[in-house]
């Protein structure tokens, strides 16, 4: 179980490699990488950066709790969450969630679970540089719905 909150980028290949290194009971590694989308209107020549604010301390605590919940629900050999904060440009990596298990189903489902819960629980806020100036991204009700679906 590893949680990292950082401004620096991360090396997805190296992180996934390390997640399963030395454990030959692992049959599958599932991962999700979130990237900054360019929301500037096409042809505008503009590019949309963003700034990610977070709540130091609570962020790490919530992410560790979400990881622990995934470990309770699925037989996982290893889990990893890396989330960046600070200023990010379109195409930049924001978040990496990865899970390793002897069972592919456990790895795939817990990976989706982690990113769905992280989206609604981890205290991060996106400030986007839109065409009309900076704008706080609004939470999506679809994210709440996806999280709620895991309660079943």
């Amino acid at each position, binding site marked *: 179980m590893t949680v990292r909150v950082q401004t620096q980028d991360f090396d997805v290949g190296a992180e996934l490699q390390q997640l399963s290194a030395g454990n030959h009971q692992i049959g599958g590694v599932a991962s999700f990488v979130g990237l900054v989308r360019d929301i500037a209107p096409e042809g505008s020549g503009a590019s949309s950066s963003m700034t990610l*604010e977070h709540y130091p301390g609570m962020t790490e605590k919530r992410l560790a709790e979400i990881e622990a919940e995934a470990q309770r629900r699925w037989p996982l050999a290893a889990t990893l969450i890396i989330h960046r904060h600070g200023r990010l440009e379109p195409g930049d990596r*924001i978040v990496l969630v990865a899970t390793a298990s002897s069972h592919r189903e456990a790895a795939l489902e817990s990976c989706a679970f982690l990113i769905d819960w*992280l989206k609604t629980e*981890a*205290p991060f*806020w996106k400030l986007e540089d839109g065409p009309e100036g900076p704008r706080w991204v609004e939470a999506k009700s679809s994210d709440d719905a996806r999280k709620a679906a895991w309660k079943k």
Partner: protein
Amino acid sequence: MKLLYFAWLRQKIGKAEETLDVPAHVKEVGQLLDWLESLGPNYATALKERKAVKVAVNQDYVGLTHPVKAGDEVALFPPVTGG
């Protein structure tokens, strides 16, 4: 009591954090929000839409009836949008 504000709540209130002596009648989160609103128009504007204000006490999400006391770390912020 240590108060922390994030995202547009931080911008509207005009500060990231402060330490306040909260009156004795303020025993729950809801009462704390009511009292903060009375501190000035910046607070009143920030806290107007209560549904958009999430509260964490000592870094755990809580509801409006959760107790608060001197020494707590209370954070106010909008619904999260990371990931």
